[in-house]
């Protein structure tokens, strides 16, 4: 942990994520009013950043076309976007590591079946599947988490599989087998710890990716439904007013990039800390 904090990237990533989480958790404290409040629309819409409206309310990043405060919506949107990202990756992680490790270590029908399943799931066009499922059921946050999780485990499984397969051929594994260690022990104690390095990176990237995909779905109108704010549907609504009010689409995008960068940096720092082979 101290080594993680000594890493500048880790500190920066953790700090950004912490600020994001605190803002999201303490949303009513850091903002004023409800994210969906609309007052006098004509008088308060498209106010530029750092302006004060006729009611005396200050808008740090302006208002959108309904006169809603963009900062308030951004903070409430963080709750949805970040929550979905983390939960979706947890789902993928559990499935992916299990499938990849088993398929990579044991040869035979089980491995072939699992690899076939992975190939099969990879061959499903993710976006078409997301579109279809969003049409099948009413779009909801839980559905987005489940769909993102269940369409995101394959890359993790393939990574783990590749890594486990490559490690199997390494001398230290042959050594462990030669001294009579049981296969499950070899897998759990010798192979998996070495194979998890790319998985941690993949998971950190996965959180960012899931946040981006959630925003993408919401952008296409298939994720979180307005008026509930999510970064994706905020960008979508800002798209139509890009010329006269660019801040509406810019702000949620910047927030998204910051959070995804933070996830990535934290993942990188974790990788270096967890892998003693990598000395810099």
């Amino acid at each position, binding site marked *: 942990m101290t080594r993680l904090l000594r890493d500048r990237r880790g500190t920066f990533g953790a700090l950004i994520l912490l600020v994001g989480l605190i803002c999201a958790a303490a949303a009513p404290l850091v903002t004023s009013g409800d994210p969906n409040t609309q007052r006098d629309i004509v008088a308060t819409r498209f106010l530029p950043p750092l302006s004060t409206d006729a009611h005396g309310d200050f808008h740090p990043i302006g208002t959108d076309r309904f006169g809603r405060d963009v900062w308030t919506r951004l903070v409430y949107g963080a709750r949805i976007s970040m929550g979905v990202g983390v939960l979706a990756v947890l789902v993928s992680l559990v499935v992916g590591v299990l499938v990849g490790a088993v398929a990579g270590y044991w*040869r035979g029908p089980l491995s*072939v079946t699992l690899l*076939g399943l992975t*190939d*099969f799931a*990879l*061959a*499903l*066009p993710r*976006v*078409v*599947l997301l*579109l*279809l*499922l969003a*049409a*099948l059921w009413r779009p909801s946050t839980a559905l987005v988490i489940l769909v993102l999780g269940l369409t995101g485990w394959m*890359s993790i499984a393939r990574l783990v599989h*590749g890594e486990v*397969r*490559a490690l*199997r*051929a390494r001398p230290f594994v042959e050594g462990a087998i030669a001294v009579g260690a049981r296969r499950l022990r070899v897998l759990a104690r010798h192979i998996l710890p070495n194979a998890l390095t790319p998985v941690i*990176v993949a998971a950190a990237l996965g959180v*960012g990716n899931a946040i*981006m995909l959630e*925003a*993408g779905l919401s*952008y*296409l109108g298939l994720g979180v439904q307005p008026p509930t704010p999510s970064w994706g549907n905020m*960008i979508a609504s*800002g*798209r139509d007013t*890009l*010329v006269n009010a*660019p801040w509406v*689409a*810019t702000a949620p*995008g910047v927030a*998204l*990039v910051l959070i*995804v*960068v933070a996830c*990535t*940096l934290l993942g*990188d720092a974790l*990788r270096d800390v967890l892998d003693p*082979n*990598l*000395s*810099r």
Partner: protein
Amino acid sequence: MLARLGHRVLAGLAVVLGVVILTFLLLHAAPGDPVHLLLGPNATAEQVAMQREALGLDRPLAAQFATWLDRFARGDWGRSITQGLPVRQLLATAWPATVRLVGLSLLLSYLIGVAVGALQAARSGSRSDTALSVASVTLFAVPGYWLGLMLVLVFTYWARWLPAFGAQGFDADYLSGAGWLVDRARHLALPLATLTLIGIGGAARFVRGAMIETLSQPFITTARAKGLTPRQVIVRHALRNALTPVVTLLGMSLPALFSGAVFVEAVFAWPGVGRVLVEAVQARDYPVVMAATAISAVLVVAGNLLADVLAGWLDPRVRAASLTT
């Protein structure tokens, strides 16, 4: 090796069949009837029944699927329900636009990404490495549709340099030679820049990670100890070993050549397959969705196979491992 390849191809065909069956079932289970979308809310029950019969939608699902598969295998992909055009024609018109966009961006982003990543790994820890890392991490974190919007804001609305949508101008039919080429290039610029910038971020990060991992291996120390120049160590020894996972990654992105970049195509109204696909799903255009899904599934399987073969070719250890099974 050949027997193994044949085995893999057979398994791949099974995967494609499974994907197609699943898509077929999902499409038919989803609410929303193409006939209702086609005829509108004022159609009488009789008209609906007639249209269903004409499209063959009144027959049992298994029979519909068998007919579709039989015709698809023979090259008859049916007609789009909403547009009345043959599906092949629809996809053949959209496909070149996608290949142009995605193919070019894949090529550019991997070429630049590998170079940047290798350079960073060679000077790992230096100031230029840090700066490039910050750049690639940021690029990798940008969602395509948002970067697209920002580029449109800057280059179309503010600078007024580049067009924001479509693959060609309204006067494209009257242009010839250089004018035509310039028009195409100007329309390609923003979507290509969007996809390539994001691609570079991903590729550079990946290559840097793989290279640094490789550079910590004992054989690199040996190579250095033999007195090879740093350049030889990086290019001949480290890069070749680090490229194996990159090849796998490239194989996985092959299907994008067909299915396109859905979000970026949506932002720029790029007339590619991704847009056709989204419109077809929304309109429940069964023949179009089925054909597009089948082709992208074939490409996914082919891409993975290609990546495996290439990985074996690049890394004899992988080849040896797969031969012993």
